[in-house]
């Protein structure tokens, strides 16, 4: 063993980059990211200057360490012939995107945005959108002339070798301060390039990044008297550059590949008209399998690269929140100890955390002390630094029980460890369940996209993220059944910016498909966030009120309410959501159902009775609700719509009600059923408490808006169903102008409906001229408009207008 270790030590090659940055020229092939390769290749093929074309723009987006610079380096190295290739995850060589020696007419010039800004500011200029293209290009050409970065040096030297005339033109450029006509100067160089077969100048602008990164003097302002230099304006201008079609048309031979951080790109992306004006290429995260495949491939050409354990690669990758930059830093650091014989991933990572000065950038210093009891428990530490759950039978049941009791020192004393259960459903099955879940809407024509809370979530991508973390032997992702753990798990793995509050709504959907018996056991993300610094960047918050204290009181108040009071608040909140502020009159109340009535003023789909009243039934138990509905439908009760709010996550209660209504059609046709998702209840309670708009968080406003839209859509959908079934004739007896003539309307209409031979002439002789005239006047209001669909009671095209009625009504009358 010792001999083998020595051999490994002597021969080993460390394939990782010490600082986690791309170095030029590349030392190893680019791996994976086939989609980026495909998109970049296709986008660059479309960069073909011609009559009437404009400057080309493409935004390559990823977080720091995501691979933007590496991709750009690859492009430059392909043009200069220094590439090590680009392979897919199976090790197959992908075709080159740029041809060597600029054979495809493409000259890539890579500059940093910060460097460009410094150049233009040094000559007292800025980058307004009207001058952005020529100035950035000119600054890049100056950089090329001065060979101010390895990538620029490589391109310039290569130009000197293969296109000396172009190199001469670039060398002849005057200093920036002496250039008065930047456009002419740039076009002059472009013209020389074109003469020598180079028709595409691609400026790769790196470090188009967050304000905090581009700001000259980061740090506090208070206490410093002088106004701090802020360079955010250089980011604000980019969407304007994309929009400035006229300026762009002046530079058809110039293209820009912007290497953007996601925050900057989001400012571009949110303007819908921008999407067609540029190519957007997001760089996704590699999977652990990609990484392992990459290492295997590397070892083929360099056998001296050691065979790291998958567990180590996985743990390091997760500890760095799947950031390739930091992954390189960690692996570079642990490489030597691994070569020296330490193979346990937990020991290696712990050693990195303690001994490497950069360890505290990946692992929180003393983070383990935030998990009560973990410091003296080796299994706990092993699981925490191992990062991923283990098969449950590998851990002693007694120890498991003890670990499950460990708490994290955080606001909610979360559990530090959790049991995870396999997800026993395919994407289609999950979508099917989502379709039935009250709080989730499957987007029609949106593939696997659903609307959950305030977010549009692609369930396919979500499942990919869950699977990439840990699967059982059958390849099914393992997920905690506990609600809070589930929310942390999903939100962390899918990213808070892409998940928002969606996990709260998705929980009931996933719960239905999670196995009852756990297959894995591991650290909770509440605990991981105490250990892994990279996970701390995104706070998971579900606050509804701006003021933390008010939020706490709200939660306490909701928790302290009796079931009956909760139902009362839900009813009130529901009406407030519909902007109906009238008081509810209570009819009966117990722990399972509360019945009340209210007069409505605004909600058209429910304004169906003569007195505009509705019954409101809120309950959680099927049998009690059924009885309440029956009592409201007896002959002694006035006929009114019944709004039923079902507050239960037990599907059997819902089934019981559905079945009961199926058996009693006369009751069913009065019921407007709205099942409440658990999160809806919290929102309705918030609405019942009548907080001003200014007291709410943006999240709460957004969720309330979505809820009110959902309620309106549900009510109007049900109304349309009832119209189609002939149960409701709209807007008969409802419009104020009709009320004066409601008797005329009813009598004449029924007279004609009772016998197809009856017409207006007969009606006139039966009821008199004035009576029928009033009937006709009332019907004029029934004319449908684009905004107001109505039941076709009258054929307005015939002369005189001929009454019509829905087939179901006709059937009823002829009985």
């Amino acid at each position, binding site marked *: 063993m010792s001999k083998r270790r020595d051999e490994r030590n002597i021969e080993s090659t460390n394939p990782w980059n010490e600082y986690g940055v791309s170095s030029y020229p590349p030392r190893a092939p680019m791996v994976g990211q086939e989609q980026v390769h495909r998109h970049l290749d296709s986008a660059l093929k479309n960069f073909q200057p011609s009559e009437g074309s404009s400057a080309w723009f493409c935004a390559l987006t990823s977080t720091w360490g995501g691979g933007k610079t590496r991709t750009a380096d690859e492009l430059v190295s392909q043009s200069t012939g220094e590439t090590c290739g680009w392979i897919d995850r199976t090790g197959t060589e992908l075709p080159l995107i740029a041809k060597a020696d600029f054979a495809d007419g493409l000259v890539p010039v890579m500059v940093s945005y910060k460097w460009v800004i410094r150049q233009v500011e040094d000559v007292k*200029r800025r980058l307004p959108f009207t001058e952005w293209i020529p100035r950035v290009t000119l600054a890049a050409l100056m950089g090329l002339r001065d060979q101010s970065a390895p990538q620029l040096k490589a391109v310039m030297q290569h130009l000197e070798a293969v296109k000396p005339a172009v190199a001469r033109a670039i060398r002849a450029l005057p200093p920036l301060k002496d250039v008065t006509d930047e456009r002419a100067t740039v076009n002059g160089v472009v013209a020389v390039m074109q003469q020598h077969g180079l028709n595409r100048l691609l400026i790769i602008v790196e470090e188009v990044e967050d304000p905090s990164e581009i700001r000259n003097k980061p740090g506090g302002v208070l206490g410093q008297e002088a*106004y701090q230099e802020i360079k955010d*304006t250089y980011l*604000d201008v980019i969407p304007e550059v994309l929009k400035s079609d006229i300026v762009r048309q002046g530079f058809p031979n110039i293209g820009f590949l912007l290497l953007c951080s996601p925050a900057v790109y989001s400012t571009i992306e949110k303007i819908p008209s921008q999407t067609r004006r540029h190519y957007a290429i997001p760089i996704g995260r590699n999977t652990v399998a990609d990484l392992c495949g990459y290492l295997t491939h590397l070892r083929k050409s360099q056998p001296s690269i050691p065979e790291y354990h998958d567990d180590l690669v996985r743990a390091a990758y997760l500890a760095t929140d799947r950031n390739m930059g930091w992954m390189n830093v960690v692996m570079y650091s642990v490489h030597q100890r691994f070569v020296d014989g330490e193979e346990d991933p937990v020991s290696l990572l712990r050693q990195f955390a303690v001994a490497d000065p950069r360890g505290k950038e990946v692992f929180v210093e003393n983070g383990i002390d935030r998990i009560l009891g973990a410091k003296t428990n080796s299994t706990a530490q092993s699981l925490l630094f191992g990062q991923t759950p283990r098969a449950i039978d590998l851990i002693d049941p007694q120890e498991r029980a003890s670990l499950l009791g460990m708490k994290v020192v955080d606001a909610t004393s979360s559990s530090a460890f959790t049991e995870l259960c396999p997800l026993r459903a395919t994407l289609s099955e999950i979508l099917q369940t989502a379709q039935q879940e009250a709080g989730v809407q499957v987007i029609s024509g949106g593939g696997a996209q659903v609307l959950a809370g305030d977010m549009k979530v692609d369930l396919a991508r979500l499942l990919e993220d869950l699977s990439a973390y840990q699967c059982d032997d059958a390849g099914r992702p393992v997920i905690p059944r506990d609600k809070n753990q589930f929310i942390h798990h999903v939100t962390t793995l899918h990213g808070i910016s892409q998940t928002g509050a969606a996990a709260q709504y998705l929980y009931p959907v996933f719960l239905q498909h999670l196995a009852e018996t756990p297959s894995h056991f591991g650290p909770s993300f509440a605990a991981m966030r105490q250990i892994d610094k990279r996970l701390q960047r995104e706070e998971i918050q579900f606050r509804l009120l701006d003021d933390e204290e008010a939020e706490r009181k709200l939660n306490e108040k909701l928790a302290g309410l009796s079931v009956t009071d909760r139902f009362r608040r839900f009813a009130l909140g529901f009406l407030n959501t519909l902007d109906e502020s009238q008081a509810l009159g209570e009819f009966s109340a117990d722990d399972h159902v509360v019945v009340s009535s209210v007069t409505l003023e605004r909600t058209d789909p429910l304004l169906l009775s003569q007195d505009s009243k509705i019954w409101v039934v809120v309950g959680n138990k099927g049998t009690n609700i059924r009885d309440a509905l029956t009592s409201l439908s007896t002959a002694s009760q006035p006929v009114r719509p019944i709004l039923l709010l079902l507050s239960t996550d037990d599907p059997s209660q819902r089934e019981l009600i559905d079945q009961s209504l199926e058996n009693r059609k006369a009751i069913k046709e009065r019921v407007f059923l709205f099942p409440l998702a658990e999160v809806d209840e919290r929102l309705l309670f918030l609405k019942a408490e009548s907080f001003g*708009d200014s007291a709410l968080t943006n999240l709460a*406003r957004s969720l309330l808006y979505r809820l009110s839209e959902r309620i309106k859509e549900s009510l109007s959908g049900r109304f349309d169903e009832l119209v189609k079934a002939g149960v409701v004739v709209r807007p008969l007896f409802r419009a104020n102008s009709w009320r004066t003539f409601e008797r005329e309307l009813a009598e004449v209409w029924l007279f004609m409906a009772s016998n197809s031979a009856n017409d207006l002439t007969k009606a006139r002789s039966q009821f008199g001229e004035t009576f029928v005239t009033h009937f006709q006047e009332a019907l004029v209001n029934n004319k449908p408009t684009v905004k107001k669909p109505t039941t076709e009671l009258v054929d307005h095209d015939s002369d005189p207008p001929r009454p019509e009625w829905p087939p179901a009504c006709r059937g009823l009358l002829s009985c």
Partner: protein
Amino acid sequence: MIDHNTLASINLSLFGNLLHKLGSSGRAQNAEPKLRDFMVSLQLVSHLEKANELIATDRLFEIGPTFSENEAVRSALALQSDYRLYLQHLLLSSLSEFSDDQSLGKTIEQLDHLSFELLQLVRRSSTELEQGTSFAEFEKLTRKVWQSPDAITFLSKVVETPSDFPSLPNGSVIKVGFDWLEWETPPLNPAPAPWGDVSPLHSALETVRNPFWGAMAATLDACTGDYEWQSLILRGDLLRSFHRTVGNAQLALDSLWRSEFGLYPVDPLVITPSLLGDHPLPAVFQTDDKGRSCLPWLKIALDHLHRSEIAIESEGSWRLTDRFRTQLMRDDEHMMAFEAIRQRSYRLARSATKFTLASTNEVAAS
């Protein structure tokens, strides 16, 4: 120094117009030399000889706001020392005619702001005034300006509108901060920023260079929310920072502008209904105990900015329009102004994070 005849020969209509202009925009060009010298002597303006431009000082705004040009003229003339002395004598002579102590007491209450000066005068020799040459010009002037043929009418006018005879401004003399974007640090003594002139809103560059509208633009830029630091929320009457209430928006911004911009908003000298838009003209002008205006200047300003398509209310919160921001990025000059605005808006947003409701109240109370 202005002699009696010069004072009497002032064209009151022109003077009223000039005061209105200076009191709204803070600047006026090519003023009549006599008026210019008079105002400079009272330190109501500073004269920039090169541009032949007058820039209003905080002293001018201290005598307002008023409802009409005539009231502004009364207030400004009353600052001239000889004429002031004459007016004070008129007041004293009228007061001496009172036989009823109760009425006298009530009348004196209305003159409380002048009590120190009047007491000084009572102690001095009553012959001091008579040593002067002729008061015929002052009498004529008072008749014209105050429509007061006699002392008792004058007293009744002052009692009716005490602000027309203001107390003497004191302290430093600070010009309106038209050069505020060039300041590298906020000055120790904040400069006035009058909100009475909406003409700069026609140009993006003029808007941001104007101390009041520029400060509004910087404030709204801090509310934009594109970057994490743009964390201010201006909704309703409240200012929030990172979703925490800072306090009443108008009060909080007054304090924040003073410390972070070196500016403070001031009401125009002459308030007209057209300037207030939909907001009603108040019956009387009020200030809080810090001397800050109680006019809803913030709402009025936001209305004007909205009409000029500079600000927009989005989901209940105010922010700059994209159109306005685009204008600020169209050439080097605009970009540099935008940068200066951004530096200030960043500072404002950062400062607001440390500004709590309690501190707002403390500031308001102090």
